[in-house]
């Protein structure tokens, strides 16, 4: 009798435990389904003429660009609410294609609801312009002209060659890596600018209070101009760098730990602690570092 009662209790306990586990699993599944109900995943293939231009306007979310073969733009995007939509437009001759995120009429989405995440494959030779408010922009392996602009979204560019790259940023970092044989023009107010192995005919980066960090050899015989108001400029060069380097800070300081030969002819008189100049190897690239009140440091890799 006692054994039977005990077995019954065990069976009831096991059943109760199974019931609880099943209910918990069902609840979790329900939550997951609800969370993804508002997200819409779409894909599109858009024709674009050779050498055409792709414009992407997206406030929040993210934009990822990479190159691909073929002659079409392949867009994959996730819309996080039903309060926004993506318009796809192109000119008749397919020279210009535009992807624009916007709120639906009478809708006022929150930042979370306004998010759209783009992943775009761009054919070789197509120029790209991307403008966001807070969405970070990531571009890699592109070959056409690239224009990237964001108020507060981080901008990252990797492995771009033989291009013209224009970057505009306010407060978020700008990071360039392995950008070669490219004309680079970067402007940022307080966001820091980091350049790793960035070379080309003209490399210009200007900030107000953001720091500029350059690591590379300044090769190619180009002009390198790094300018800040109060941000620091830190440059690290390999011993093989061939540069004609000038560094000046109006009210800040300069610090040189890179071997330079004194120039025979200077356009200004170097001032101890405020400016210096010199050449390394054959001095084929011109490097100018200017700051109003920031500290300028040059050191050997």
């Amino acid at each position, binding site marked *: 009798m006692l054994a039977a009662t005990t077995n019954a209790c065990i069976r009831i306990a096991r059943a109760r435990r199974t019931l609880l586990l099943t209910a918990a699993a069902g609840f979790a599944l329900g939550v997951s389904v609800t969370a993804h109900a508002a997200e819409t995943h779409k894909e599109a293939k858009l024709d674009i003429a050779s050498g055409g231009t792709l414009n992407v306007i997206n406030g929040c979310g993210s934009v990822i660009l990479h190159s691909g073969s073929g002659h079409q733009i392949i867009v994959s995007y996730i819309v996080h609410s039903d309060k926004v939509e993506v318009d796809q437009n192109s000119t008749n001759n397919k020279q210009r294609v535009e992807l624009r995120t916007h709120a639906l009429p009478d809708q006022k989405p929150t930042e979370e609801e306004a998010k759209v995440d783009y992943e775009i494959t761009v054919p070789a030779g197509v120029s790209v312009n991307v403008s966001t*408010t807070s969405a970070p922009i990531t571009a890699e392996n592109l070959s056409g002209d690239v224009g990237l*602009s964001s*108020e*507060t979204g981080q901008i990252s560019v990797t492995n771009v060659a033989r291009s013209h790259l224009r970057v505009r940023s306010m407060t978020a970092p700008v990071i360039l890596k392995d950008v070669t044989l490219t004309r680079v023009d970067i402007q940022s107010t*307080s966001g820091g600018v980091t350049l790793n192995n960035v070379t080309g005919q003209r490399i210009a980066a200007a900030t107000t209070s953001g720091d500029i960090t350059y690591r590379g050899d300044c090769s190619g015989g180009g002009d390198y101009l790094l300018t800040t*108001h109060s941000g620091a400029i830190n440059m690290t060069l390999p011993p093989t760098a061939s540069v004609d380097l000038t560094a000046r800070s109006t009210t800040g300081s300069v610090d040189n730990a890179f071997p330079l030969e004194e120039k025979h002819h200077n356009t*200004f008189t170097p001032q101890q602690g405020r400016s210096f100049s010199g050449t390394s190897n054959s001095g084929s690239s011109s490097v100018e570092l200017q700051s109003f009140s920031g500290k300028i440091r040059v050191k050997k890799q």
Partner: protein
Amino acid sequence: MDCQKFQETLPFIIESGGTGEDESHLKTCPDCASLVQDLRYIAEQAKLLLPMHDPNPRVWQGIEQSLQREGLLEGRLSPPGQSSKYPTPQQQAKSTTPVGSILALLAVIAFAAILFNYHLKQLPPAALSAQNTSAEPAQLNSDALNSDDRQLISQQAPDARTAYESSLRDVNAYIADAQKAAANDPEDATAQELLQDAYQQKEMVYEMATARSLP
């Protein structure tokens, strides 16, 4: 330095000349330059209104003697040692005449009237802050926002306003510093380049805002 601060130091400028900062402001502000010119002219002219010295006592004595000989003047010359109704050499200090006093008073009134007319013309706050923004070095108001800046910020989405405000303050401070450096040494090419860069930074912020506001 703005017009208000400059005009507070006007008495010292008229009296003993201005500092380098005052001179810099005069070069950039035609209103204040005109005011200083007028005040200096008045100060120069006012000196001419100082009381005239009385003539030498011998002149008076000669006149008195002539009048007595003509029978037009009663009395006689004061004997030595006695007081005379005419000023003695010791009393030939810079004694004032009523006419001189009135003219001096008129000069002071004219001075005050010109000061009042030039005194801090009621500039709109935007223009005042624009002067502060453009001329002040890296001090309290060098990053001040002008009316265009504030309007631009107000037109942005709420989540972007903080970024625009901080960026505009940064670039305004940059412009102020660069302007001062360029003004201190107009031949300094680096200063000119930094000023150009500062303006380009501000242009960038406005371009981004404008592009954002377009449909």
